[in-house]
């Protein structure tokens, strides 16, 4: 299947091509050319991916396609091929990455109009796509890690795209550095895994086959360190702080990072190593707890934000928490299903938000918007669908996937996690509709003169709205008369659940009720009047500043590190080590001065030396002779 390699290589090549054209003459406006190349590349990848997905759909569930491009490295037992693999899990990831990715590219071609860095933007954008595709198609962890890191690098480039502002570059740095903290854990996990499997091959399939060779007591460590990588990439506690700041990039970047690529990588990785995580239930539980805490924290913070993109960013963090609850508890297909549905509605939300921001001359504060229902009808309807979907109202996409996760938590008897998840569901409905009502329904205080939106920005919204409305139908559980096509398609080694249908109905009903309550609360508070909340109260201040976590990190980690650096440079290096070397020189010089005074050219001193010399020699001769 040489086609597999095309999926990955085409975006890379077009990134290279765009980069060369752009650098040849950066100032020349060539938007049409850039947009054509930049959008065509992912579109081709998407088409090829569709072919492969169709084949996998009709073939047996254990079918895996392989293609080896070349041997990447071979030294000792460390033999890594640049090889691609597509099984059904890959196919699901490929499906939404390429299709939603292409739509975001299309949207960006309208969004970035008039930007002087148009060509550069599309070059980075394609690089990002290529890296993500490399990550999901890799047939061994090392190539996956390369894609993993390149995703981090391209996110850095895109987040700090407007690099004239230091704040944006800081955000980019933050994203890359926190990702690298995760990668540090990831590489530790991979290295330990390799050492224990040395000589037995290092592809995913070989690892799965040889799992038995690893000392069972070492498995939890491997599982934990690998998950640290996921914490960084998928913005989980405590490495989540980069995600909200990643808003510094242009909005299509946020859509791409938050929906189709990057943050989903962590969930994918855990699902890819499902055979490992099934062996280490305690680490799975740990993952689920981290996920639930992240979900709740994100939802709480999102409820108090005013910036439309920040609200969406925290909601991403919160939804990712759900996904980790699922994969942590062994419900891999539910986790991936939520990744899948989330990709649709989150991409839609970000692109809708971007459209609003552009239309309102780069206004991002929702309390300065209002009454846009009539004026932006083609943004309003898709946004409504997406908001319903994320809030978990049936039959929209989010309901089924979220429901499945909460049911998993309940039936695994993780009631705390379940309660946290349900609370999060309530908050999600509340803050999403708060956003929705404030932006679209509440009367606006000032007249807006809107900038008309390009068609290339509206069309993707409509396509995604259809997806957000229907994607959930792929995963209707048995209890509702469906047969969960999705779960049976991805065929992941889920931990089996035992739950009565009646309990399932009850839980689903509860979830709907919770979501409706959230919506009602938002309606009561925000649909009629808009008062920008003032943040004088201390608890509000704490919440709007996301519990001052950034400040804590700066105060407890960054500042001490910088101080340590200065201390080492000026004190240890400059004073202690340097001076101990200088001390030798000092002693040498002093000794020189002392000996120099002896040789002062005065005869009486010399006579004195002679006297000492003669008496010394004669004394010693006396002693020797006396002995003799």
């Amino acid at each position, binding site marked *: 299947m040489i086609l597999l390699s095309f999926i990955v290589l085409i975006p890379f090549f077009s990134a290279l091509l765009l980069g060369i054209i752009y650098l040849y003459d950066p100032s020349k406006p060539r938007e049409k050319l850039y947009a054509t190349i930049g959008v065509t590349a992912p579109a081709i990848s998407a088409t090829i991916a569709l072919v492969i997905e169709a084949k996998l759909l009709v073939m047996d569930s254990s079918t895996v396609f392989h293609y080896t491009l070349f041997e990447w490295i071979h030294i000792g037992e460390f033999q890594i091929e640049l090889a691609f693999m597509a099984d059904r899990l890959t196919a699901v990831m490929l499906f939404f990455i390429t299709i939603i990715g292409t739509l975001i590219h299309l949207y960006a071609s309208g969004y970035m109009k008039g930007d002087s860095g148009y060509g550069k933007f599309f070059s980075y954008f394609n690089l990002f796509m290529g890296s993500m595709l490399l990550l999901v198609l890799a047939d061994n962890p090392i190539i996956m890690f390369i894609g993993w890191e390149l995703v981090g690098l391209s996110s*850095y480039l895109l987040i*700090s795209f407007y690099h004239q502002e*230091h704040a944006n570059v800081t955000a980019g740095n933050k994203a890359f550095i926190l990702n690298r903290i995760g990668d540090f854990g990831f590489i530790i996990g991979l290295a330990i895994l*390799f050492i224990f499997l040395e000589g037995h091959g290092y592809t995913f399939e070989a690892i799965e086959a040889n799992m038995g060779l690893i000392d069972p007591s070492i498995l939890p460590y491997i599982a934990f360190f690998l998950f640290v990588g996921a914490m960084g990439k998928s913005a989980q506690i405590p490495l989540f702080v980069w995600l909200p700041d990643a808003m510094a990039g242009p909005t299509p970047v946020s859509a791409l990072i938050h929906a189709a690529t990057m943050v989903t990588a962590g969930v994918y990785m855990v699902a890819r190593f499902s055979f490992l995580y099934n062996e280490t239930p305690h680490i799975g539980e740990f993952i689920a707890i981290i996920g639930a805490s992240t979900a709740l924290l994100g939802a709480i913070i999102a409820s108090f934000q005013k910036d439309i993109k920040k609200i969406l960013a925290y909601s991403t963090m919160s939804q990712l928490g759900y996904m980790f609850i699922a994969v942590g508890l062994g419900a891999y297909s539910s986790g991936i299903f939520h990744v899948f549905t989330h990709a649709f509605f989150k991409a839609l939300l970000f692109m809708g938000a971007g459209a609003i921001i552009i239309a309102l001359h780069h206004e991002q504060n929702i309390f300065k918007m209002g009454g846009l229902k009539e004026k932006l009808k083609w943004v309003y309807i898709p946004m409504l669908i997406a908001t319903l979907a994320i809030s978990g109202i049936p039959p929209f996409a989010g309901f089924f996937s979220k429901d499945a996760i909460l049911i998993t938590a309940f039936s695994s008897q993780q009631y705390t996690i379940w309660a946290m998840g349900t609370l999060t569901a309530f908050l999600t409905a509340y803050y999403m509709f708060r956003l929705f009502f404030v932006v679209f329904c509440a009367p606006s205080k000032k007249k807006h003169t809107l900038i008309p939106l390009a068609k290339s920005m509206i069309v993707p919204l409509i396509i995604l709205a259809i997806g957000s409305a229907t994607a959930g139908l792929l995963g209707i559980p048995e209890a509702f008369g469906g047969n969960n096509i999705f779960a049976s398609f991805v065929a992941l080694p889920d931990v089996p659940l035992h739950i009565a249908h009646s309990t399932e109905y009850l839980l689903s009903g509860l979830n709907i009720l919770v979501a409706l309550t959230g919506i009602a609360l938002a309606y009561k508070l925000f649909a009629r009047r808009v008062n920008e909340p003032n943040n004088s109260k201390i608890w509000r201040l704490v919440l709007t500043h996301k519990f001052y976590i950034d400040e804590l990190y700066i105060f407890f980690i960054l500042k001490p590190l910088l101080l340590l650096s200065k201390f080492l*440079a000026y004190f240890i290096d400059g004073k202690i080590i340097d001076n101990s070397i200088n001390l030798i020189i000092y002693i040498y010089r002093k000794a020189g001065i002392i000996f120099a005074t002896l040789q002062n050219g005065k005869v009486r001193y010399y006579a004195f030396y002679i006297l000492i010399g003669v008496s010394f020699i004669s004394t010693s001769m006396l002693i020797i002779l006396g002995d003799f």
Partner: protein
Amino acid sequence: MEQILSAIIFIPFFTALLASLLRLSYSNLRTLSIVSSIIVFGLVLFLAIQYDPHGGMQFIRTVDWIKNYGISYHLGVDTLSLVLLLLVSLLMPLLYLYMWHEHRKGYWYNMLLLQSGITGAVLSLDLILFYLFWEMMLLPIFIMIGRYGNSNRQYNATKLLLMTMLGSMSMLFSILYLGYTHFEISGIWSYSIESLSLVIFSPFIAIWVASGFLLAFIIKIPLVGFHTWMAPAYGSSPTPAVVILSAIMAKLGVYGIWRFGFTFFEETLTRYTPHIITLALIGLIYYAIIAITQSSLRRMFAYASGSHLSLITLGLFFANIYSWGGSLYFIITHALASAGIFLMIGLIYKRAKTINIDSLGGIASQAPLFALFFTFFALSIAGVPGTGGFVAELLIIIGAFKYNILIGIATASTMLLAMLYTFWMLQRTLFGAVGVATQNFTDLSKKEIIMLLPLAILLLVTGIAPSLFIPFIEPWISITLESINQNIGGL
């Protein structure tokens, strides 16, 4: 063919001699230097093609020199020396391109002599000969810093000279002792590596003799505690000298341990291993943390270089195939990347008249191509995938885990630490608003692109397809490792 190694060593030397006798003008001197460097590069390439990676020491040439004391003119090349040879002969033409408008003739003479010194040291198989070349390469650097450097240059040059001389003297003592012991045991004098490697000492004496060598090499690398010359010397050096210092000379310390340490003292080195690993691990972290807040670009990359050389040293002492492969690979990619970065720092100085990080900023807006190259080299130093640096670090990290898991974790921290200084530096140097110093910052000229492109392409290729290079270095590594393990096991 017989004389090819001698030609590679002495072409630059005789070019300098000829030019000084003829009193050439600077432009003729430039032409002559460039031609000589290209001829040498061609010869080295030819040598590399003829070289058989499985063949051990090759192109050996032995001529008696001071017969009474067994000192001979003894040359040969194996993979380790060929790698360094390729690097230095590749860098020289690029450096001459950098020096294109350099009117001070001393620059050119010193660089020619430096090349001869380095290639001689790398190719020598006789310890006395090695010592001569080892000292020969120090003097041009001393003069380059002391005469053409900046800020406190004479003090810093003297510091470098004294500290390296301290190491050289201890090494000379050990060399003489080795030769004498050989004479005592077998009745004939010899200073060639093969015959000396047969000499066996009592463990107590071996530790002292080995320490003489180690001191020289550790100062050259430098490991932490022996590094006070490093930042001042890097800071004061003119660009061509700093490129050679970081890209080649620092690696010669590693070369020395590899060549002499692991042939004469395999057994003794195992006693030193825990201590050197500790020292190198401390250095790896210590240098990286200091690099974060350095205000001068050169000093920052001096510490970065120290950190990565500690990593290479670590790889050497883990002594397994992954770590050795990684170390040798890192010698290549770090040389390319640090040459690139120091050349570009030189270009920044030419344009902005400062290399103080806080005075820079906004370069990316003024000169996108410049920013691209600079970022690329910096990323390679930080070990981002797609650059050769990543492959090397990955291999060393795997080797470290094979040695010991906890030490592996400590070694892997290099990935993290390198990020911190690299990205904060990039932000302040390239991004942000255009400052006073950078307002007339021009983008790369054609000549500068030609100078940097080979380095960038090589780094990219070493990153994307390491399988093109690994087969070249792997046989030597596995053969050497095997023989060491045999020797240690046999004793």
